[in-house]
């Protein structure tokens, strides 16, 4: 049986851990709110961009931008978004698994990766996957300029004809309790259809310069925006997952403390009983003598 002091020392150490996990939980909750605000802030731009693409697409019907052309091959570049730090539950594992599985199913000929976030990079390098560009240690509110170079690498591969698709995998934020890996095909680009009954602006634009040049400028930005949004949404997922993970850790620490306290009391009681027995039997022995 361990000494009473040792158990008390153990309880103290768990209490310290619990304080830390509790603090991390609170920090994650605050950061989650900020991350959600950042996601919201990109909405107007993204919505507007889609609206303009729809309008321009209806005008320049003859012209097919290379990003809109479907290729038959089985080569792909996957842009994998993960977190930089751990202690956030299973979201990275889920993302990486979803991404690699999707690649193995659909793109058997050549698989290459662009990673945004340290966890994904480390994992893929450990398993000797081909990582052609990476960005890690992104701040909580990254600017698009930080993400852009890595995305450009992927787009250039497509433009050079070195790959047949560019994909994106990130953790989609569904609720605080739920985040799911999401995979999107960035190129060939799919411009969402207008909702039924929703008429586009009937106005015939004057284009400066011609519609093709405008489309050339818009499409890469559309893709970049999707990636940037994914990075922000992944942040929100990260902090949600972290908050839940730390909440569970805090609860688990509490359970452990309760169990150990009970055990410590038993040990102490057992000690007292033994001592009493000794005294009693000692006294009996003395009076018998």
């Amino acid at each position, binding site marked *: 049986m361990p000494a009473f002091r040792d158990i008390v020392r153990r309880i103290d150490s768990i209490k310290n851990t619990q304080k830390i996990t509790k603090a991390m939980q609170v920090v994650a909750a605050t950061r989650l709110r900020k991350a959600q605000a950042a996601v919201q802030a990109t909405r107007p731009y993204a919505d*507007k961009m889609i609206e303009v693409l729809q309008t321009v697409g209806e005008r320049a019907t003859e012209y097919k931008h290379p990003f809109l052309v479907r290729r038959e091959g089985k080569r792909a570049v996957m842009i994998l978004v993960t977190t930089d730090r751990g202690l956030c539950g299973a979201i990275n594992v889920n993302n990486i698994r979803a991404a690699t599985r999707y690649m193995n199913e659909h793109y058997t000929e050549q698989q290459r990766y662009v990673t945004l976030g340290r966890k994904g990079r480390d994992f893929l390098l450990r398993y000797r996957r081909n990582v052609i560009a990476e960005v890690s240690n992104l701040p909580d509110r990254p600017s698009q300029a930080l993400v852009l170079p890595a995305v450009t690498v992927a787009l250039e591969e497509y433009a050079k004809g070195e790959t047949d698709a560019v994909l994106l995998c990130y953790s989609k934020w569904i609720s605080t309790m739920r985040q799911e890996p999401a995979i999107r095909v960035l190129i060939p680009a799919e411009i969402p259809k207008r909702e039924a009954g929703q008429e586009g602006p009937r106005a015939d*634009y004057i284009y400066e310069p011609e519609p093709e040049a405008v489309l050339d400028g818009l499409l890469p930005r559309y893709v970049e925006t999707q990636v940037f949004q994914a990075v922000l949404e992944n942040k929100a997922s990260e902090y949600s997952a972290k908050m839940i993970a730390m909440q569970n850790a805090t609860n688990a620490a509490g359970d452990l403390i309760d169990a150990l306290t009970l055990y410590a009391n038993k040990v102490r009681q057992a000690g007292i009983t033994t001592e009493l027995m000794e005294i009693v039997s000692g006294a009996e022995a003395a009076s018998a003598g």
Partner: protein
Amino acid sequence: MPFSLRVVSVERSLFEGDVDFVVANGADGELGILPRHAPLMTILKPGALKIRHGGNEELLFVGGGFLEVLPDRVTVLADVAEHADEISVQQAEEARRRAQEKLAGTLTASEETEFQNALAMAEARLRLARTRRG
């Protein structure tokens, strides 16, 4: 008769409201938008975006993007955008110096456009900051 204007960048929304007059730096030259302007879609080059509403004038820096004019509203989709008083002269000067150094060396075609663009952005920022300070 004012019209509604919205300026958004990927990171945030910079301006939203009714305005009387907008001047932007289009791909084919500077253009001014007054109410009842014909529908237009243009690429923007790095430069100033001047907004006049009521008696006020606002200055924004737009580092390239798109401008859409519809009968009832105008939208600016900016790659990068800042309010004029957010511009850091020091950073812009550094960026200009870096771009100039790079352009002096030998470059591939895509690097050339990249640094040309960086240079244009830095110069537009500086020009704007200077007019701001009078």
